């Protein structure tokens, strides 16, 4: 074995063009080949050499895929044990995007927590904000005081967000199996949703817009018309998606009967969202345990009965239609709520200032500055206390889950009666659903692992938090 190793080292010295990072090394666990790009030849050669030396070549190969692999949906590391091209065991390595968001939230005020948790699952920021805010509202016992307009805006933003998230899922899933057009048109549409987010919240992602007590700002002028235009355009373009993919023989060939997981498997592994609904079980928290007034909207829960990646794709496509329906209803409601409050009336909780566009750009509204600096000392103290110290939340714990694009997302919010969260734990659906990787991909081909993972749609920002 050593001889072979030396030979390969010599070989690389003689051939300076060889990739210095793509070599083999001996470890306690066997020979390790580092493969970059498409130089699988060195692996094949190495295994052949082993057999030539009279040693038994292992009948299986363990391939480490990721965390920097373009097909693993982010910084996911897959450890695949292969027999030929068949995956005999698949394991996930995660933690490459762990940023300590939950720990950091314990050192900031309750309102600042929103700024952190919006960054977890970066494809569905509004859902992170909403579940955290609803948990804090439950502890504050102000759930019924959140104004109607704030609830409608939350629904509107969450459903727009569901569309953009599903678009990315379908787009990247398509890209990973080589369907580049699916990716380009998916991101094209997503860009329009992000433009709407930018118009409403000021940011394309990381909004920190849904806050305990309501939302940060009122709808800007002209936003409703833009959303109506977007809905009209999407109604034209979603059928194009369906026409491109639904009956596409290559697409179906890659997706059908891949990543199979039945209902019993889903429940045992705690899988929710489109993966659960692809087994035919219509479990959607928006219907079964409505929050934010979802019971007042007319929409259907989409299911499929194939339990495979193709069914999940069709569910996501159909859910975008349903989201458009909800967005339309929300827009109509907002049209009748002009000028209504968007934050809870309790001035001990509501953020004191509103933003306004001034001569030097966006900033605190001049009316508010005039009020606290020139008119009312108490208002100034109040502003200062709320912004620096924040409000107190009664001791206790709450868990208010909601249906994110990936399944049940919930925040276990614990307060000790202080001005900071004592502990916030997010039950992120990506984290839980990723556990299905093994059962979905073992026994299949390497190429199907990619499809299975894409059908789970994990977002590593949410997995690692």
């Amino acid at each position, binding site marked *: 074995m050593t001889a072979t190793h030396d030979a390969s080292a010599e070989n690389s010295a003689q051939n300076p063009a060889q990739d210095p990072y793509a070599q083999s090394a001996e470890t306690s666990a066997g020979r390790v080949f580092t493969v970059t790009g498409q130089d699988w030849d060195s692996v094949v050669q190495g295994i052949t050499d082993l057999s030539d030396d009279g040693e038994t070549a292992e009948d299986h190969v363990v391939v480490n895929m990721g965390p920097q692999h373009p097909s693993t949906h982010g910084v996911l590391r897959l450890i695949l044990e292969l027999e030929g091209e068949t995956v005999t065991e698949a394991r996930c390595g*995660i*933690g490459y995007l*762990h940023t*300590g968001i*939950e*720990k*950091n939230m*314990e*050192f*900031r005020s309750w309102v600042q927590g929103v700024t952190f948790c919006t960054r977890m699952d970066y494809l569905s920021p509004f859902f992170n904000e909403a579940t955290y805010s609803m948990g804090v509202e*439950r*502890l504050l*016992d102000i759930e019924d005081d959140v104004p109607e307009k704030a609830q409608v805006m939350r629904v509107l933003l969450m459903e727009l967000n569901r569309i953009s998230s599903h678009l990315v899922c379908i787009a990247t899933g398509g890209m990973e199996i080589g369907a580049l057009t699916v990716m380009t048109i998916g991101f094209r549409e997503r860009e329009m949703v992000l433009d709407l987010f930018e118009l409403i919240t000021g940011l394309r992602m990381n909004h920190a817009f849904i806050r305990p007590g309501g939302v940060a700002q009122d709808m800007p002028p002209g936003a409703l018309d833009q959303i109506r235009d977007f809905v009209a355009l999407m109604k034209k373009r979603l059928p194009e998606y369906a026409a491109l993919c639904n009956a596409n023989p290559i697409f179906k060939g890659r997706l059908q009967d891949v990543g199979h997981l039945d209902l019993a498997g889903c*429940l*045992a*592994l*705690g*899988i929710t969202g489109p993966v659960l609904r692809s087994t035919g079980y219509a*479990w959607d928290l928006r219907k*079964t*345990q409505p929050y934010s007034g979802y019971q007042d909207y007319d929409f259907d829960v989409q299911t499929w009965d194939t339990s495979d990646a193709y069914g999940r794709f069709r569910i996501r496509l159909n859910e975008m239609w349903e989201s458009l329906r909800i967005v339309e209803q929300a827009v109509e409601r907002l049209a009748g709520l002009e000028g209504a409050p968007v934050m809870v009336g309790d001035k001990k909780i509501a953020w004191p200032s509103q933003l306004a566009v001034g001569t030097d750009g966006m900033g605190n509204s001049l009316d508010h500055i005039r009020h606290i600096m020139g008119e009312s000392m108490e208002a100034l103290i109040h502003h200062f206390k709320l912004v620096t*110290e*924040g409000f107190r939340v009664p*001791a*206790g*714990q*709450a*868990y208010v*889950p909601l249906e994110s694009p990936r399944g*049940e997302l*919930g925040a*276990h919010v*614990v307060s*000790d*009666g*202080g*001005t*900071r969260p*004592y*502990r916030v*734990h997010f*039950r992120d659906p990506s*984290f*839980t659903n*990723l*556990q299905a990787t093994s059962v979905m991909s073992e026994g299949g081909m390497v190429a199907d692992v990619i499809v299975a993972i894409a059908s789970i749609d994990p977002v590593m920002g949410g997995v*690692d*938090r």
Partner: protein
Amino acid sequence: MSDDTGDKKPADMKPGDFPEVTPGTEPDATDTAYENRLPADPEQLEPEVVGVRQGMFGVRGTGDTSGYGGLVRPVAMPGGTVRPYGGWFDDVADTLEAACAQGGLPNAVEKVVVHRGEVTFFIRRHDLLEVVRLLRDDAALRFEFCSGVSGVHYPDDAGRELHAVYHLLSMTHNRRIRLEVTCPDADPHIPSVVAVYPTNDWHERETYDFFGIVFDGHPALTRIEMPDDWPGHPQRKDYPLGGIPVEYKGATIPPPDTRRSYS
């Protein structure tokens, strides 16, 4: 709770047999009504004091100009609740109690807390695995879905420093409950529920990683988020957040865990 002391008629009593209850004060229907019953253990109803808060406005040490420096207040989590808990909470509590008694775990439920419309069952840690099995398999309970486990560290809650919190969902009955299990820092062991809820595999690894709670019976309890050789368990309260001062426009901003915190 026991109402057999009032059953004896004075005529049945032998001379010298002192009545345990003064005649005329036997428990009647009003006394046995739920709201007038004493709990088995009054300590259960005490709020769980998990710490002490001193002073106000985050002022530390000398130079306290707030005038509140001597203020001492306990930090208390909501205490146990007396029946009726309300709605389906009673159904679940009754069924669970009966199932536990039948399964030979009469004291499995330490206390029940109903707060903000959510119900929490504090479970004795040694009984956890059997209790979750009952919760999943009993047709009247049927909590077939577990949303994972979350750890909480209360360093000042002596003997109960580490809490593991489970959120269970019954899709059949559309109900949610919370289980809470505690263990001391000195013996951080809690039975693993992976055998009943395989979904908790990663969740328990995460809680072990961040809190150091050892889930006995877990198939492979290793770190999941932090590197394998990481020292310490980062989400514990005694683990510092870390950070460096940042200079911005000439001013230096200290790291978050050294800034003023408002007590």
